[in-house]
């Protein structure tokens, strides 16, 4: 199951809640303000590293660009909207709002 997370980890509990329920191996895609979670060197770096160790992690490139994020944590793959569609084609979806 593909999990999408769209909220900043700093202002919402979505990220910290979602990671408690996501099963190992399930892909996680960060979109919209959610992409702040994958930026290198912020307060959530360690928690994100834990996710990356157990799950394929993606971030939506257009959302990263829109927010001026150039350095993402190692192990995060960037996808565009086409890549988002491909992930959805492969998995059922769980959109954590």
């Amino acid at each position: 199951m593909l999990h999408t997370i769209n909220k900043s980890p700093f202002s919402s509990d979505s990220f910290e809640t979602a990671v408690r329920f996501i099963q190992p191996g399930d892909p996680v895609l960060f979109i919209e303000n959610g992409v702040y979670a994958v930026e290198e060197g912020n307060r959530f770096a360690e928690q994100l590293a834990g996710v990356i160790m157990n799950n394929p992690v993606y971030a939506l490139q257009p959302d990263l660009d829109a927010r001026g994020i150039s350095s993402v944590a190692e192990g995060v793959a960037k996808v565009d909207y086409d890549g988002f569609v491909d992930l959805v084609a492969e998995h059922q979806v769980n959109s954590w709002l």
Partner: protein
Amino acid sequence: MGNEHVKKIMHVMRHAPHGTIYTYEGLEMILIMAAYEQDLSVVFIGDGIYALRKNQDTAGIGIKGFAKTFMALDGYDVEKLFVDRVSLEERGLSEEDLVVDVEVLDSAEIGALMNQQDVVIHH
């Protein structure tokens, strides 16, 4: 045909009541979907648990209360109500504080249930 068309649909309640309408309109959605004989479940995570609190009296804020409507779900054959244990505990609440009987599960158990669904809708 038959069973192959029954979809597993999970509704996830995440918002406290009254501050926003998400849980209330989510409940309205569940009540309609219940008539379609799909395999429905409802999970309460985080502030969503607050929607199930006993003794909510909304007269003072002028908004219709709806906690008791959760009690009607049983009559609609929506019997699978799950509550996240951590969410309950960090709020200092227990099952006795809730208006309906629920099954309290660990996050790993809820996560496993989520993975069996065809559709998951967060409210």
